[in-house]
């Protein structure tokens, strides 16, 4: 199973800043292995972020997002102790959801 995400959510002024690192190969499908065989594409395609159950960001990614992806953004509101839930789904249909609490 994929490793957990590393999520940081902090109140900054009247917004909440979310920074997340995900553990994923983000294989492009363009690389070849040592035997010269093409390594099939394998990458995160969809990311959703929800604040207390309400979606705040949706993303679609291609394989050009760097390996072990990083994402940062802010949304209005959010208070210490609120729940941030992030889910990704990759091109193999694997899915991972992690939660963090706003600090």
């Amino acid at each position, binding site marked *: *199973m*994929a490793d957990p995400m590393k999520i940081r959510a902090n109140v900054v002024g009247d*917004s909440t800043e979310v920074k997340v690192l995900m*553990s*994923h*190969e*983000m294989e*492009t*499908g*363009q690389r070849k292995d040592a035997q010269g065989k093409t390594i*099939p*594409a*394998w*990458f995160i*395609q*969809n*990311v*959703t972020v929800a604040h207390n159950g309400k*979606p*705040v*960001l*949706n*993303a*679609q*990614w*291609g*394989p*050009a*997002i*760097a*390996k072990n*992806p*990083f*994402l*940062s*953004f*802010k*949304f*209005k*509101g959010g208070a210490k102790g609120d729940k941030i839930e992030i*889910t*990704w*789904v990759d*091109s*193999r*249909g*694997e*899915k991972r959801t992690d939660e963090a609490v706003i600090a």
Partner: protein
Amino acid sequence: MQNTRRQVLKSGGGLTLFALLAAAGWLKPGDAAAQAWNKGAFEAKSLDEAVKAVGGGTPAQSKDIAFVATPDIAENGAVVPITIASALPKTESIAILIEKNPNILAASFDILPGTEPSIGTRVKMGQSSNVYALVKADGKYYVASKEIKVTLGGCGG
């Protein structure tokens, strides 16, 4: 990541059920699992093609789109930090496109109500290239661009 048992669907290009759904237009709010992935847009080779794939017309150049904390030179193309901020009213989405990558669209972000129109992430670049920030605001498309140079590094080749 040894896990392949959750593989839903196997096929040559690594396509999934979601990709095969091939939605038109931008994302709708909701769970990632229920999200569609715009295959056509991600296979586009040019900016025009990509915009067309998301149902837009020719984008207008805009000075209200900024690349923030984005270096002109990347020491390594495998990881290029990019932050895009839009000052356009009613920004609905922000997309990153890299002209010289095999497929031009790198990512698109749906800015939901209450979310600030500023996104930071990291992309791969095969070579020095123009990078476009494509913004949909109030139903219309706008674009800004920046050139990022990729240097070669390393000693022993």
